[in-house]
């Protein structure tokens, strides 16, 4: 074959065709080889890459457990809500979609139109919608609904400090945080197939693990009491101009916390009751005395010379406002004599004094399951200064939390046992099974029962005719102690003119069922605990008694009431007779409490005097001369409240009359709310809806007065005579009152006038 022939052959279509075919076969073969590499050799790598971008590990939120009060009323609960997203370019009919959004979600027509006609691929509506929104939108194309769980608090801010909040699915503060693991449950997980824009592909979801709902927490709190406490505290803060305050209601028999409110600068989202220690002042004195009695270092009958209200120990002078001279220890406690208590406390060895207070739980956290509980400060004797023993005896150089104080008073009330505070009653599984029931736990016996009874007697007297008369209830004997201490600022120094006013009481004095702790932070004007805090205690107790289902042992109360009624009647008769003999029987004053002027005066007495300088400087490591008493303040207080109230001719609070509202037929709770709202106090008589009030609707009364509300059904209990100027009580209502009793009151429209102002 010639070269020419070869060239021709190479250019022949047959040869070119073979080359071309070989080219295509090779190309296809090469591609098949490359596909084999990609699919068989590198397959796993690409598969992993594919999974990474296709599947989103989605978490399925678990329903968070609820927080319930002791009666099972939900205080915090989770419910389903839905978020709505729209893919505008998938909508078949934008007008119909907009109309659907308006109808199903209540969107404004303009917003709906904007959402469906957006140029964006995905429009997420900001709101959350209830489950019915999902049903309405389920079939709509291009509209996507995503489930979410939302936390709600049916009672708003009530108890918010205790409950805490849920932020970003995590409990923050309070029970929500403390029981986070239990409440949260176990979120489930699913794998969601997603398209390139990250949207789930319908029907392409695989559940990996189902979510496990969280369990409920049942608190010892009583919703009604919590509300009563909150309202009472708010009212007191408004009345006194205080910056804030704490109010605790506990059951001394079990250590259960029934209500706990802390308000600071208008917000109740606080746990001041457990995390903010303060210097208690006079409210600590009962423990000083209890320890002395327990250790046999003194007896209530021991007499002590209060030295004209001034006593200099070392370079420091302690003072009382009023001079009571030589009195028994019992009397010194009742009138809250700083000098008297401090002198008797000198019998302590430092370690004894320390151990007594420590045994009452001071300086040690109570172990309440809430985040951030403070232990307070109780220094060991080796760290004491020369003044420490004296300061401690009257409640200074010690910082306690309101909860510690309530528990310590609980120990006085229940016969000497320091209880562990309980806030959680039950921990329940998601199906309602009780996983853990927390029983009352005794921390230790702080004092013997007999000692506690002795101290309690003095505390009852303090309420009857000591510094705490404003806490007294007509119905039951109340035991309690007031305290006024100088407030410390943020820098730990005392602020001039700033005080903590407190009152801790329990009732009934015999077999107490409730301890009520009240502390007001920097009340304006009159700041004494006996004047500002004690009425709050009484108002709280009254409201509790009026509540529909108070956590009280009604039968025990009834029997106590019956017996007290007998005792009081005897006493009132005796007093009336005495007065009739002495003064010629002016009925208007017959019932005026003999102790409500002088003994009251002794309360405030000491606290500010000593607290003023002594402890402030003791804490600062310096000693200076204490300030004098506060006679001017005291005088003005007496003129305004005490004396004025006793004289029916002087209005309690000029220019602030209110009309008694018509409450006939309303349920008890509403009546109480309305009257409380007007600044009136309520004394409920009988049961059922309100039938009438005394004074009647429209009558002009003053804030602070007590309105008697008669229920439809008369209570079976005999009426109590108003001892010490107290109003007719909760269980009265019959006309069995002694004539002396009605005479003793300052007249029906001003039933409680003498009590308040």
């Amino acid at each position, binding site marked *: 074959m010639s070269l020419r022939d070869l060239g021709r052959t190479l250019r022949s279509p047959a040869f070119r065709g073979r080359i071309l075919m070989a080219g295509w076969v090779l190309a296809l073969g090469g591609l098949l080889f490359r596909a084999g590499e*990609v699919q068989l050799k590198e397959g796993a790598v690409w598969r992993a890459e594919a999974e990474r971008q296709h599947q989103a590990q989605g978490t399925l939120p678990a329903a968070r457990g609820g927080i319930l009060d002791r009666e099972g009323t939900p205080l915090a609960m989770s419910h389903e809500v839905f978020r709505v997203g729209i893919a505008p370019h998938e909508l078949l009919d934008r007008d119909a979609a907009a109309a659907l959004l308006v109808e199903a979600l209540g969107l404004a027509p303009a917003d709906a139109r904007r959402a469906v006609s957006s140029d964006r691929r995905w429009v997420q509506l900001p709101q959350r919608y209830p489950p019915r929104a999902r049903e309405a939108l389920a079939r709509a194309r291009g509209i996507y609904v995503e489930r979410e769980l939302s936390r709600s608090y049916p009672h708003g801010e009530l108890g918010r400090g205790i409950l805490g909040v849920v932020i970003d699915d995590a409990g923050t503060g309070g029970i929500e945080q403390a029981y986070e693991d239990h409440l949260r449950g176990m979120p489930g997980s699913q794998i969601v197939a997603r398209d390139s824009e990250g949207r789930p592909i319908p029907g392409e979801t695989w559940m990996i693990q189902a979510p496990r709902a969280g369990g409920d927490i049942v608190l010892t709190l009583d919703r009604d009491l919590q509300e009563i406490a909150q309202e009472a505290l708010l009212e007191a803060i408004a009345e006194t101009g205080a910056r804030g305050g704490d109010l605790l209601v506990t059951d001394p028999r079990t250590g259960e916390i029934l209500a706990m409110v802390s308000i600071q600068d208008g917000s109740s989202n606080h746990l001041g009751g457990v995390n903010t220690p303060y210097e208690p002042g006079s409210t600590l004195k009962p423990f000083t005395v209890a320890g002395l009695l327990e250790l046999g270092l003194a007896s209530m009958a021991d007499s002590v010379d209060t030295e004209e209200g001034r006593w200099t120990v070392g370079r420091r002078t302690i003072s009382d406002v009023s001079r009571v001279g030589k009195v028994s220890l019992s009397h010194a406690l009742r009138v809250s004599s700083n000098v008297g208590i401090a002198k008797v406390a000198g019998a302590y060895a430092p370690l004894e004094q320390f151990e007594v207070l420590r045994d009452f739980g001071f300086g040690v956290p109570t172990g309440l399951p809430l985040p951030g509980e403070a232990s307070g400060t109780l220094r060991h004797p080796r760290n004491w200064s020369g003044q420490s023993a004296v300061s401690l005896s009257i409640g200074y150089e010690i910082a306690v939390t309101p909860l510690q104080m309530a528990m310590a008073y609980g120990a006085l009330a229940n016969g000497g046992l320091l209880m562990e505070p309980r806030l959680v009653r039950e921990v329940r599984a998601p199906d309602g099974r009780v996983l853990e029931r927390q029983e009352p736990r005794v921390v230790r016996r702080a004092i013997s029962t007999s000692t506690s009874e002795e101290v309690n007697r003095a505390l009852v007297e303090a309420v009857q005719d000591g510094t705490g008369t404003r806490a007294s209830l007509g119905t039951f004997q109340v035991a309690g102690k007031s305290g006024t201490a100088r407030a410390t600022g943020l820098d730990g120094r005392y602020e001039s003119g700033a005080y903590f006013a407190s009152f801790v009481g329990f009732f009934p004095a015999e077999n107490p069922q409730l301890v009520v702790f009240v502390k007001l932070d920097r009340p304006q004007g009159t700041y004494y605990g006996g004047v500002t805090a004690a009425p709050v205690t009484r108002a709280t107790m009254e409201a509790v008694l009026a509540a529909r289902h108070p956590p009280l042992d009604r039968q025990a109360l009834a029997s106590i009431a019956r017996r007290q009624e007998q005792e009081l009647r005897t006493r009132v008769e005796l007093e009336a007779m005495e007065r009739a003999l002495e003064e010629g029987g002016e009925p208007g004053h017959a019932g005026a409490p003999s102790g409500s002027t002088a003994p009251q005066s002794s309360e405030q007495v000491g606290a500010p005097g000593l607290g003023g300088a002594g402890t402030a400087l003791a804490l600062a490591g310096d000693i200076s001369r204490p300030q004098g008493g506060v006679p001017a303040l005291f005088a003005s207080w007496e003129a305004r409240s005490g004396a004025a109230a006793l004289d029916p001719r002087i209005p309690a609070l000029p220019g602030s009359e209110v009309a008694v509202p018509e409450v006939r037929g309303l349920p008890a709770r509403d009546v109480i709310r309305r009257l409380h709202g007007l600044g009136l106090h309520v004394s409920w008589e009988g049961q059922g809806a309100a039938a009438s009030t005394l004074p009647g609707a429209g009558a002009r009364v003053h804030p602070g007065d007590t309105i008697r509300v008669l229920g439809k059904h008369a209570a079976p209990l005999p009426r109590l005579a108003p001892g010490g100027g107290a109003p007719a009580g909760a269980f009265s209502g019959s006309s069995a009152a002694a004539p002396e009793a009605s005479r003793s009151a300052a007249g029906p429209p001003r039933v409680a006038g003498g009590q308040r102002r």
Partner: protein
Amino acid sequence: MSTAHADIAPTVRPRLPETGLAKGWEPAALLAATAILLGFGLVNLYSASAFLAQRQALPDHFYLVRQAIGGVVGLVGLAAASRIPYTWWRSLAWPLLAAVWGALLLLVLPWTTGIAPEINGARRWLTLGVTIQPSEFAKLAILIWTAHLAVKKRDEFQSLTRGLAPFFVVWGFLIVPILLQPDLSTAFMVGLLGLLVLFTAGARIAHFLFMGLFLLPVAWMQLSRGFRMERLRSFGDMEGTALGAGYQVKQSLIALGSGGATGVGFGEGRQKFGFLPEPHNDFIFSMIGEEWGFMGVAGLTLLYLVVVVVGFRIARRAPDLFGQLLAMGITSFIAIHAVLHMSVGLGVIPTTGLPLPLVSYGRSNLLVTLVSVGILLSIARGDPRARRETDLPRARVSRV
């Protein structure tokens, strides 16, 4: 045998039967491969386009139905073309070219936007009741015309100016409007098809190289315009711009790779959910690779191999040079689309929008492909008149 015949002896085998009828298994194999590709294509097209259709607020079977209608029309065209003697197309070489050129002009003229609207930045479709993509028809037209002229000018191929220049001039009339649409890959494809026919007709390799040099600056000018440049540049840059061309190649490889040996299962593919661009069209091979795995890819490749082998067998047995060139051109037309589409999917070449023959969505391409197969079948059947009416008189004339 006449001397005239001897002149073109290398193209027509002396041992061919006088009838020119190529009986045997080839037509059946070609029809079977075509039918399987068409059926398999429709099934996968549904899988690929259902989600896409729904996202566009269309019924899920929207693309399937349209493609199926195109398929039916195409099959009618195939049946007709297989019965019409292929020589008929040769007589239509110039009119067909003129018609296509006219249609392409409509796409670039400024006052024809009413029937040639701009879609996604390009004017590629005529909307005349049905949507037609003239550049697809240009592919068949250039095959027929080039084969026709190649037969005619065969003796002058040695000369660049007299032999090849006329081809380039006429091709230019087709290619320039396609470039102006703009549709670079189709323009490139049309030119390539013409060159392939010239190659099979026996043009000099040196001329191809020369032409390549000539085309380089033109190609560069086109490439430097707009998104195509970015596509090319990001090629090989797999981790590059998230939404760039590197992303597309990566998504394609993820689809193929995750298919593994046997695939994730029909309809179970994930990459079609917005990850693969145009999963029903430019990247349907990748989606098939995902759902059917290497098994499916191998099957698909095998089917195209059958088409290639059968096509060239038909060409070899074609009664005349025109039939031979046209058969090789049509076979290469199918093969080049398959190879380039798969190469894009496998990341071997930069991303271009080329359909997978008989599988990708696109009715113009489907119709043209099926008619082309019909022409192949017609060539396989042979035409007793072929030699008489074309080769012999032409050969004689050319000698004169």
